[in-house]
């Protein structure tokens, strides 16, 4: 493909109508909560942009994030996103393999030094010199450091890359760490979720292309447009929470009536993501709508939050594990203090005589 052309020219050549393109720009502006005028800016920005070189690195991951991004639902968004960017390296989606694949990565890095974006899914194992995950004979850590050296920005997608995810869950046998632990001298955008919402990934990339800058991020480096609000605050079951109407199990009358799932372990109140608004699979549904509480998958350490089916307001672990010992100790000290008081009294009485 001729990378000298602008994206606008390329899309016209491919028969993508201006109407389709503007619809995509408006959609992206609206899901990122940008003002309506931003749609034009996005359209112009993307039309005038050159294809962005993207290197996608997959480390300790399950490919769920890739599965998710390929299901971005706006009509032709998948085509658009793969036209906007030049995906120069991606294990699952590229044709090349072996040496040819690694050469493609090297070539992209050389030709676009300082300009390419690195997308990472998966955590990086550090224990035992990182031997637990290697690609093309080098560890994930070596590949990451080598690739991000000349990158413009890094986008960590999925909870493994952003917070360690399942590989990093207790007891974390491989010493898995998130990307932000390693890349400290470049901007890192975290798009968490297991997997992340496809539009959160494509929207963020579109923003980078359109404005040439990084969108506003929260304290965990996540774009506020997608991670600014708690699921609970946008949940259509919220009124039932306020009214005190809760499903007690997954098959009771409350569950059938669509009542709040707090009591069966929903983590919506502490989970920041756009599931309740953007939803999944073309806006069809999201976990809570399909009858299951939120797992909190876009939050750090969601795997170790004390159980998916334990309500948020319960104690984590077993708070009564020392209760027996505490009672015995309390009784022993109480008895000892009473005995001491008695003997002191007796002594005083005796001396008094």
């Amino acid at each position: 493909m001729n990378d000298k052309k602008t994206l606008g020219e390329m899309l016209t050549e491919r028969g993508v109508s201006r109407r389709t393109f503007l619809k995509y720009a408006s959609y992206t502006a609206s899901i990122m909560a940008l003002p309506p005028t931003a749609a034009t800016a996005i359209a112009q920005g993307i039309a005038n942009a050159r294809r962005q070189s993207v290197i996608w690195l997959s480390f300790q991951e399950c490919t769920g994030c890739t599965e998710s991004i390929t299901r971005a639902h706006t009509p032709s968004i998948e085509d658009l996103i793969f036209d906007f960017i030049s995906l120069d390296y991606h294990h699952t989606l590229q044709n090349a393999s072996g040496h040819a694949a690694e050469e493609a990565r090297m070539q992209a890095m050389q030709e676009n030094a300082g300009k390419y974006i690195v997308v990472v899914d998966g955590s990086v194992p550090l224990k035992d010199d990182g031997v637990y995950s290697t690609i093309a004979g080098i560890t994930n850590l070596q590949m990451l450091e080598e690739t991000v050296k000349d990158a413009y920005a890094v986008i960590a997608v999925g909870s493994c890359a952003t917070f360690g995810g399942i590989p990093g869950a207790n007891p974390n046998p491989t010493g898995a760490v998130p990307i932000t632990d390693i890349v400290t001298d470049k901007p890192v955008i975290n798009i968490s979720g297991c997997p992340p919402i496809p539009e959160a990934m494509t929207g963020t990339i579109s923003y980078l292309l359109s404005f040439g800058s990084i969108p506003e991020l929260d304290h965990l480096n996540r774009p506020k447009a997608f991670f600014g609000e708690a699921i609970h605050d946008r949940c259509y079951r919220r009124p039932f929470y306020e009214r005190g109407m809760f499903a007690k199990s997954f098959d009771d009358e409350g569950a059938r009536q669509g009542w709040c799932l707090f009591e069966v372990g929903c983590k919506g109140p502490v989970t920041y993501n756009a599931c309740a608004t953007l939803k999944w699979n073309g806006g069809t549904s999201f976990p809570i709508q399909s009858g299951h509480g939120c797992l909190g998958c876009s939050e750090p350490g969601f795997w170790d939050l004390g159980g998916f089916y334990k309500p948020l307001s319960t104690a984590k672990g077993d708070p009564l594990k020392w209760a027996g010992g505490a009672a015995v100790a309390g009784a022993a000290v109480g008895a000892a203090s009473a005995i001491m008081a008695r003997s002191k009294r007796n002594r005083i009485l005796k001396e008094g005589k």
Partner: protein
Amino acid sequence: MELLEFARGPALTFAITVFIAGVVFRIVSLFLLWRTSDSSAGSARERPVIVAAIREIIRRLWPQSAYKQRTMFMLINGYVFHIGLAIIVFFLLPHIVFIKDLVGLSWPSLPNNVIYAVSIITLVSLIAALVMRMSNPAQRIISTFDDWFSWLVTFLPVITGVIATSHLGARYETLLGLHILSVALLLVYLPFGKLMHWFLVFVTRSQTGAHLSHRGAQL
């Protein structure tokens, strides 16, 4: 999130352990103390101990006519925040769920908005109790650290709970973490101060009733 995890995990486990140990310690040490046998002849008006105890418990539920005017507000205010606290603690679903997870018992909950209204009334009532303590010179002078601190550890869970429910000032997980930590503080302090009346209020009143009855006090 780390704060919430700390609060739900180690902080709560520690607080519950100290609470249990402290309460058992206080009760055992109290009941194992000697009781001086009172060999004096009881008054002619002396009632059986059980009757005297129950009468005293009931009698103290309402002010005596001699003190009615002076103590009425304090007594009603006391009822307001005690009942308010009980409703908040036992009828908000997240609290019921917490208790169910701990001991397996559960019961129906009240709507959040009802609890919210009760919480505001309770907060006002608690503040009124503090203002009364501070504004009355005699009461201020006899107040000890225990009085002030007991008020604080009671007030904090209510105020943090209300703030967490209304999402004011910080993210919900932070507010919820602070709320649970304030409860942990309450649990840790409870056995060692006047808040032990959670368990001892009727014990002490029974003892007083029996004593007064033996002396023949006409109540």
